[in-house]
C-alpha cells in the first residue's frame, strides 16, 4: 500500500513537472555566460528536467539555433520566430541577439544529454538503445537525468540497466557510503564490462575504503558467475542452432542414405538447388509482388521442396536405380552428377555468390538473461528444423508411403511379394529425401553465402551426422546433429574453429571404429 502511494506521488510529481512546461531562468542564464563549468553544469541540469522544452533547448544548442539577447536571456530562433524557453511563449525577435558560442566540450555535453533524453522516449527500443549507449561511457553529470528516467521507466530490463548506470556513475563518488552502495547495487548486473572497473578499485591507488573493497570483491564474484552462466547459455543456444543447421542439411541424407542405402554424393547439390530456388523466389517476388516481398520465404519452401524433389526423382530414374546394390559405383556416379549440377548452376547463375536477403522479420533478436542476444534467424531455423523433423517422422510412421518405405527397407523381396511397387516406392522415397534437402537449402540460404559450391561445404558434415547417428535411425540423426553442434560450439572457444572441426572429424573417425553401427545400432532382424 505504501509502495502504491509513493508511486502515486511520483506520478503526480512527473505530471506537475510536465505541466510547468517552462525552464527556470536561473538554469538558462549560465548558457549565455562565460564560465565553461557553469555552462556544462547547466546543460546537465536542463537535461534533468526531462521535459520536451528542455529537449528543444538542447537541440537548439546542438544545431546552433540558440541565441542570447544582450540582457542574458536566451531564445530558440527559428527563422523570423523566437521562442522564449523561460516563459514558454513565442515572442518577436528581440534586438541585438547573438548566437550562443558552443565549444567542443559543451557540444559533447549536449550530445550526451540529448542521447540521455532518449531514455524518456515513448518507444521501448529507443529507450533500450539509449541506455545501452550510455553504458559505454557514463558521465556522473547525467545521474539526475537517469534518476528521472528511472522513476518513469516501466520496463524491468531497462530499469535494471538504468540502476546499473547510476551505480557505475557513483563508483567514484567522494563519499565512501555512496560508493559502497553503488558497488552493491552493481551486484545484480551481468555486464562483463564492469569487471575491469571493479578490478581497478581493488588495485593499489584505487579504492581506499576496505569495506568498499570487500563489497567490490563480492560484487565481482556475482557478476562473474552470471557472466559465465550467460556464456554457457549462449554456447548451448548457438550449439543447438548449429545442430539444427546440420540436421536440416543431413535429414534428407538420413532418408536417402540411411533408409535406402544410397550413397548420394550429389546431396550437397540438392541443398544448393534449394538455396537457388529461394533466390529465384526472391527475384520473382521483387519483380511481380513487391508488396509481399517480406514473405517470399514462405513461397520458397514448397518451391524448393518440389524442385529439389523433382531433380531427385529424375536422378533416381535415370542413374541411381541402375546401381542398386552397388554402393561404391553409386558413390562415383552421384559424384559425377554433383559435378554436372554444380557446373550447370555456375553456367546459369555465374560463379559468384548470389544475394539472398533475410526478410526484415528475421533480423534483430530477443535479449534474454540481461545481455544474451538470440537472433531471430537462428530461432527461426531451430523452429523450422523441429517442424521438418516432426513432418518427416509423421510421413515415415503415420502414412501409407511411410509404411511402404519401411517395408522395402526391412525386406525388399517380401515387400515385393505382398504387392508393394518397390520401384515406385524407391523413386518416391528418393524424391522425398531430395525434397527435404531442398528445404534444408532454403534454411542454409538464410545463414550463409549462396553459391555453386554451397553443397560441397556440407557434404562431409552431412555424412558424418548420418553415420554417427546410426544408419536408418531418425532419432539418431537428430541427436548426432545436435550433439555435434554442441561439441563444436564448446570446443571453438578453446581450440579455434578449424581445430574444433578437425577434432570432431577425428572423434567421429575414432567413434566409428568403436561402434561401426553408430550411436543407435539397429537391433534384431534388420541387422545385416
Amino acid at each position: 500500500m505504501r509502495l502504491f502511494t509513493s508511486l502515486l506521488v511520483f506520478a503526480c510529481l512527473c505530471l506537475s513537472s510536465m505541466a510547468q512546461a517552462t525552464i527556470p531562468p536561473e538554469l538558462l542564464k549560465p548558457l549565455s555566460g562565460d564560465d565553461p563549468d557553469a555552462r556544462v553544469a547547466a546543460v546537465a541540469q536542463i537535461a534533468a528536467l526531462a521535459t520536451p522544452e528542455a529537449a528543444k533547448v538542447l537541440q537548439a544548442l546542438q544545431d546552433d539555433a540558440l541565441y542570447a539577447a544582450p540582457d542574458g536571456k536566451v531564445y530558440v530562433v527559428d527563422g523570423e520566430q523566437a521562442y522564449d524557453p523561460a516563459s514558454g511563449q513565442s515572442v518577436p525577435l528581440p534586438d541585438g541577439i547573438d548566437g550562443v558560442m558552443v565549444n567542443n566540450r559543451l557540444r559533447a555535453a549536449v550530445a550526451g544529454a540529448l542521447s540521455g533524453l532518449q531514455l524518456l522516449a515513448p518507444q521501448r527500443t529507443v529507450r533500450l538503445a539509449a541506455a545501452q549507449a550510455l553504458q559505454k561511457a557514463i558521465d556522473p553529470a547525467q545521474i539526475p537525468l537517469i534518476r528521472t528516467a528511472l522513476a518513469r521507466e516501466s520496463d524491468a530490463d531497462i530499469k535494471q540497466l538504468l540502476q546499473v548506470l547510476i551505480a557505475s556513475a557513483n563508483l567514484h563518488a567522494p563519499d565512501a557510503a555512496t560508493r559502497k552502495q553503488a558497488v552493491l547495487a552493481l551486484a545484480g548486473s551481468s555486464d562483463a564490462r564492469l569487471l575491469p572497473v571493479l578490478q581497478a578499485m581493488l588495485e593499489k591507488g584505487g579504492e581506499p575504503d576496505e569495506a568498499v573493497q570487500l563489497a567490490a570483491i563480492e560484487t565481482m564474484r556475482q557478476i562473474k558467475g552470471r557472466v559465465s552462466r550467460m556464456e554457457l547459455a549462449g554456447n548451448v543456444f548457438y550449439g543447438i542452432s548449429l545442430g539444427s543447421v546440420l540436421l536440416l542439411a543431413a535429414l534428407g541424407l538420413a532418408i536417402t542414405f540411411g533408409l535406402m542405402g544410397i550413397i548420394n554424393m550429389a546431396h550437397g547439390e540438392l541443398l544448393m538447388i534449394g538455396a537457388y530456388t529461394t533466390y529465384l523466389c526472391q527475384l520473382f517476388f521483387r519483380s511481380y509482388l513487391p508488396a509481399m516481398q517480406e514473405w517470399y520465404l514462405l513461397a520458397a519452401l514448397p518451391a524448393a521442396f518440389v524442385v529439389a524433389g523433382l531433380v531427385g526423382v529424375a536422378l533416381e530414374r535415370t542413374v541411381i536405380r541402375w546401381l542398386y546394390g552397388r554402393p561404391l559405383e553409386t558413390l562415383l556416379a552421384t559424384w559425377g552428377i554433383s559435378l554436372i549440377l554444380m557446373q550447370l548452376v555456375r553456367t546459369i547463375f555465374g560463379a559468384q555468390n548470389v544475394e539472398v536477403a533475410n526478410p526484415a522479420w528475421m533480423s534483430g533478436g530477443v535479449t534474454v538473461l540481461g545481455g544474451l542476444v538470440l537472433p531471430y534467424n537462428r530461432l527461426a531455423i531451430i523452429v523450422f528444423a523441429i517442424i521438418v523433423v516432426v513432418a518427416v517422422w509423421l510421413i515415415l510412421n503415420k502414412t501409407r508411403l511411410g509404411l511402404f518405405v519401411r517395408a522395402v527397407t526391412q525386406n525388399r523381396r517380401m515387400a515385393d511379394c505382398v504387392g508393394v511397387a518397390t520401384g515406385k516406392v524407391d523413386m518416391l522415397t528418393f524424391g522425398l529425401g531430395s525434397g527435404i534437402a531442398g528445404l534444408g537449402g532454403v534454411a542454409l540460404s538464410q545463414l550463409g553465402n549462396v553459391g555453386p559450391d554451397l553443397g560441397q561445404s556440407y557434404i562431409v558434415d552431412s555424412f558424418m551426422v548420418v553415420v554417427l547417428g546410426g544408419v536408418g535411425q531418425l532419432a539418431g540423426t537428430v541427436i548426432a546433429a545436435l550433439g555435434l553442434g554442441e561439441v563444436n560450439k564448446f570446443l571453438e572457444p578453446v581450440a579455434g574453429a578449424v581445430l574444433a572441426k578437425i577434432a570432431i572429424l577425428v572423434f567421429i573417425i575414432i567413434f566409428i571404429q568403436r561402434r561401426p553401427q553408430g550411436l543407435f545400432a539397429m537391433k534384431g532382424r534388420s541387422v545385416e
Partner: protein
Amino acid sequence: MTTSYPIKQGLFTRPVWLAIAACTLLAALLPILNLAFAEGHALHVSAYTVALVGKFMCYALAALALDLVWGYTGILSLGHGVFFALGAYAHGMYLMRAIGDQGQYHSSLPDFMVFLDWKTYPWYWAFTEHFWYCMALVVLVPGVLAFVFGYFAFRSRIKGVYFSIITQAMTYAFMLLFFRNDTGFGGNNGFTDFKTILGHSITAPATRAVLFLLTLAFLLAALIGARAIVRSKLGRVLQGVRDSEARLMFLGYNPLWFKLFVWTLSAVLCGIAGALYVPQVGIINPSEMSPANSIEMVVWVAVGGRGTLLGPIVGAFTVNGLKSWFTAALPELWLFALGLLFIVVTLFLQQGMLGVLSKFKRKPVVAEEGA
C-alpha cells in the same frame, strides 16, 4: 568378378610385355629429344610436354596404388590424396630448406615463416635439410599414417562405403589442418618457388630429364612389382577379400594383415608419386588434399579399368590428357565432361577402357569365368 590365371606363366604375356616396352621407350625418348634437339627443330619436344607427361606419370603411379586397394582388394579409398600430398610435402620440406636465403625476404627461414614472424623452425622440421631424411619421410609418413588408420579401421571391420566415408573425412580433416598457417606448412600457398635439388637447378632441362626418367623407372618398377604381388598367393588372398571376405574368414584367414599390407603399400606408393610430383610441378598446397581430388583419382582407375594394372595407368593418362585439352580449349565444359565420365563409366563401362579392349581380343589376357 572371379579371375583365375594359368599357373605357370610369365608376369605378362608377350604382346603386353612388348607394349609396355614400347611405351617405356617412347616415354624415355621425350626428355632425350628435349635435350638433344634445339627449339624449333622438327624433333624437338617442348619442356612443357616433358613436364606434362612427367606429371601424368606421377598421377599414373598414384592410380596404380589406388587400384591395388580398390581393384584388387575391394577397399575404395576416397582419401588417397592425403598420402600423395604427404609424400609431396615431405619432399617439399627438403626443397624449401634448399632455397636457403634465396627467398623473397633473404632469410634462412622459408618465406611463409618470416611472414608469420617465426624465429626458428618448428620441431617437426628438424633434420629436413638432409635430402635422405626427407626421402625417408616420404615413405614413412604416409606409411605410418596408413598403417595406424588402417589397423584400427580394418580391426573393427569397417567395410565398403563406411570405410570410403571415413577416408574422405580423414582427407578433409588434413586439408583443414594444412590450410591453417599455424600448422607450419605454408597454409594456403603451401610450398613453392623451389630453386635447387641436391645442388642442381630445379628448372634446368637436365634436372627435369633426370626427374622424368626417375618417375618412369618408379612407375615401371611399381607396375611389375604390383603384377608380381597380385599374381602371388598373397594377391589371391587379396582378391578373395574383394570377392567374399566372409568366406575367406571361414576358410581360416585373418584378412586384417592382408588388407593392412596392401593398404600401407598403396599409401607408400602414393607418397612416392607425390614426392616425384613436387619437383616437376613446382608447387604443393593443401587443395591436393581436398576430397574432390581424391575422388578424381578414383575416376582415373575406373576409366582405365579397375582390377587390371595397366588400366589405371591408361586411365590416368586419358583423363588428365582430356583435362589438359578441355581446360585449354573449352574450360566451362570440363566439369560437365568429367561428370559424364563418372556416370558413363559406372553405368556402362564397369571394366573400364581395358575391359572394352579385351572384348575384342580372341585370347583375353585375363580369362573370365562365370560371375
